[in-house]
């Protein structure tokens, strides 16, 4: 029997499926960071290698989301909140892909260096990863609940990542200047790694902006209040 009570049934199903795919992608990204944590904590280079290998799967998932979103736009010509949802999901997926990319950079860093060399920065990196993972989980929750305020709070959380990054810079720069080549190279790599984690946080902030756009229909820039603005304020 054909059910005429909801003429949007198949469209709604496809929209929901798109949301599921995005959630899966976020799970993969989180999974990559969890593995990085294990690799760091238990000094398992093979786990880091898995993260590098798994990157293709994440790229494929992003492409699938892209394909489905384009098909939905072509076949259903969504408007209003439907259109915003499809567009936001599409853009969120590419931010998630970037977040996962940084996990690959971390994996390469682990593969290149010996555990003993990382020193206190190992815990610092793990701390940033923990924070980043919570941000991804929260922003996905705000997407599922269509909660713009919750998304805004995630963007606020990004400040902590910014601070963790900037607070290490002085010491690391000092090392690059005063130490032997090997240690200086390691310090430079560590700066980059912390920077990648800070950037990953920016992408989560972008994802939060997409959630707010989808829910509210307006464009937000949560990032404004972040490093740059505060840098300007602190250096007046």
């Amino acid at each position: 029997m054909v059910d005429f009570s909801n003429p949007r049934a198949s469209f709604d199903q496809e929209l929901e499926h798109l949301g599921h795919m995005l959630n899966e992608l976020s799970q993969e990204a989180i999974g990559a960071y969890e593995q990085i944590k294990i690799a760091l904590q238990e000094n398992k280079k093979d786990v880091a290698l898995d993260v590098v290998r798994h990157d293709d799967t994440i790229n494929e998932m992003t492409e699938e989301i892209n394909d489905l979103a384009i098909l939905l736009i072509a076949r259903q010509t969504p408007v209003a909140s439907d259109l915003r949802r499809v567009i936001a999901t599409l853009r969120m997926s590419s931010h998630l892909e970037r977040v996962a990319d940084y996990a690959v950079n971390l994996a390469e860093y682990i593969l290149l260096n010996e555990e003993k060399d990382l020193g206190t920065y190992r815990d610092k990196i793990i701390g940033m990863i923990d924070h980043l993972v919570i941000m991804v989980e929260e922003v996905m929750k705000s997407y599922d609940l269509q909660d713009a305020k919750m998304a805004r709070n995630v963007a606020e959380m990004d400040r902590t990542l910014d601070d963790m990054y900037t607070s290490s810079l002085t010491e690391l720069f000092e090392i690059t200047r005063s130490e032997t080549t090997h240690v200086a190279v390691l310090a430079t790599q560590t700066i980059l790694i912390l920077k990648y984690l800070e950037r990953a946080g920016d992408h989560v902030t972008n994802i939060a902006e997409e959630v707010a756009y989808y829910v509210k229909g307006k464009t937000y820039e949560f990032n404004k209040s972040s490093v740059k603005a505060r840098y300007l304020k602190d250096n007046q």
Partner: protein
Amino acid sequence: MAENNKFEVENLDLFYGEFQALKSITMDIEANKVTAFIGPSGCGKSTFLRTLNRMNDLIDTVRIDGEIKLDGQDIYKKDVDVTDLRRRVGMVFQKPNPFPMSIYDNVVYGPRAQGIKDKKKLDEIAESSLRAAALWDEVKDKLNKSGLALSGGQQQRLCIARTIAMKPEIILMDEPTSALDPIATLKVEQLMEELKKEYTIVIVTHSMQQAARISDTTAFFLMGELIEMGDTNDIFSNPKKQQTEDYITGRFG
């Protein structure tokens, strides 16, 4: 009166006998813009469109309250010349309705009825109207053929040419492309884009995509009420009213 308002409608009520089909409609229709009316079947789009050139006068159960001003003049005042009003405010219907006569005679029907007899003048009107309706190239070699022998899309453009020949200021179109194939539809839509430079266009459509593609302003009606009217881009990306959102996304029902 605001500078570029063609119509100004205030608190318009319309009754068919006991039944109130329009409830306190207030809106401005801007000159040289395409304004689209959307809404579910029976919400009063056609009824409202017909109030703009007093086509409802032809139905004797109809009673109207409120005010409609065209260029600042109340069109329902006693001394208004309704024939002249209908010349100024032309109308194109859902189904192409060419008269059973030649293409040429169809186009110059109105001007002839107005008393223009000069052959040269009529030729001029026929050519310029057919050109304006983007039909000239397709029919210039067969002007004496019957209008009924044209395709549906050509017939609709012929009807538009017939309306244009009356030199209207406003063209009302009630679902003008609902009987046309996609290509003919696109031609009529393209034509509207061109026509709005000289005319004010008001169109009723059931196609959300059509409203989104061609109109500058969109008005959403529901059960005789104007729920929301605004910039088409806003209506289709971020409508203010939940009822509008529900309708355009197909959740309505």
